[in-house]
């Protein structure tokens, strides 16, 4: 049996939630004071996900970086793989907020989209 200690992020209370697991199966969730704590803990133990926000290089832009994010949450374990793929990519100006910059990043089925706009640099 495994025991996982978590801090619930559902509200500022930040309950310390203990989850006991047997292999893939959750045996018990304790320490939470409301149902949100239990559902958060179950998700964190079985399938933790995060939205990754970062920046990407821009070619020919008025700025050198464009802010971007994964369009939805990706498995927590893939965060650094996603970061590596974004770091090796380059967007081309002009970039509009909402543009898809990478399709299916790190094989997660999730796209990386721009969260800011970058105009093309003035031609010299």
């Amino acid at each position, binding site marked *: 049996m495994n025991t996982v200690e978590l801090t619930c*992020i559902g509200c500022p209370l*930040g309950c310390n939630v203990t989850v006991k697991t047997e292999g893939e199966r959750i045996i018990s969730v304790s320490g939470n004071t409301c149902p949100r704590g239990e559902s958060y803990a179950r998700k964190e133990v079985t399938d933790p996900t995060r939205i990754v926000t970062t920046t990407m290089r821009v070619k020919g832009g008025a700025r050198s970086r464009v802010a971007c994010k994964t369009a939805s949450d990706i498995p927590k374990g893939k965060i650094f793989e996603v970061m590596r793929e974004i770091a090796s990519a380059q967007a081309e100006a002009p970039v509009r907020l909402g543009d898809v910059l990478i399709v299916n990043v790190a094989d997660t089925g999730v796209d990386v989209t721009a969260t800011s706009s970058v105009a093309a640099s003035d031609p010299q």
Partner: protein
Amino acid sequence: MTVTEHDIVVIGGGPAGLAAAIAAKKSGVNDVLILERGGELGGILNQCIHNGFGLHTFGEELTGSEYAARFIAEAEELGIPYKLDTMALDITPERVVTAVNRTDGVMTIKAGAVILAMGCRERPRGALNIAGFRPAGIFSAGTAQRLVNIEGYMPGKEVVILGSGDIGLIMARRMTLEGARVKLVAELMPYSGGLKRNIVQCLDDFDIPLLLSHTVVDIEGKERVTAVVVAEVDENRRPIPGTEQRISCDTLLLSCGLLPENELSQSAGVELSPVTGGAVVNESLETSVGGVFACGNVLHVHDLVDYVSEEAALAGENAARYVRGERCEGGEPISLRAGNGVRYTVPSFIAPERAGDKLTVRFRVADVYKNAFVCVYCGDECVQRRKKRVLAPGEMEQVVLTDRLFAENPGLSEITIKIETA
């Protein structure tokens, strides 16, 4: 020197200035001008590329830059003029604004009303009394955030962060994602000033230790930071001898509080609160100088931008009423007092005639409370008592006062907001 006149001049084009200008314009004042020091609208939101913004305003989770873009788009649609790269230098009590930029030179702008929305700045090393050398490698967390997210530079490789406010936590994750090693976050207080979510998703996710009741007592390195010395502090926040530990690093980030940026307000003669560092305002968010309004982080430091937008919209509406001469005369104002456990309230005064049917009073608590009550007193009578499972200094709280309260208590001179633990 050019002299122009505008109905409303908004100082600052960040989230507060944008929301105030939009609300003023929607309230029917056409001649609104925004002065922005930076090269684009949006203010600090542009460097806040992380998500978690807008849950209250838009019901979805946006990044800071996305949140800003929505307000910028609305301001553009409404055709609100703005001047970028423009520094406001002075405001007189008669609401004459002096500003300068490279195309117009020095400008004199006579304003019907002024809305102060200059935001805040970070507490710098010089204000922290940290001993040691003055090498390169010491940054405020917000400066590092700008370097990484806007300029694309990494300020260092091995990082210690002092202060666990939200910017410090966000930067711990950001630096880690970009390949730096964040060794430690030290927090002077016995609790973090940041949101729980940020502690879990920015520190716990990456196994970054958070040391509460710890501070930096020495910085080593002559050219560049080579190490910092961290020590535990006692209940009076004084370092405990013998608890020092030396942590080698090349970068120290400071996330030690935000201070409203009010030099301009002072030149206008605006009375400031010693607690918030922002203006003392009435229910209309009007300062002690008539026709000068304040909102956002220049008024008091907020935790969520959604509340900034809400507050700023109210300032914009009230400034519009002021220039249109539509404001009713307020009688003797009610003083709003911060009682036990409450550090301050915004506003400080209320003219009930002008408060509308619902008035939101925002405040911060002085300590961490569990299962406590937020109470509103008119004299000895408790008129509102709301249980809160947790109250923390890092989170802004609010109570809503209704017109019924004022109607039922005519001649009221003082309302007290306090925390009761039983």
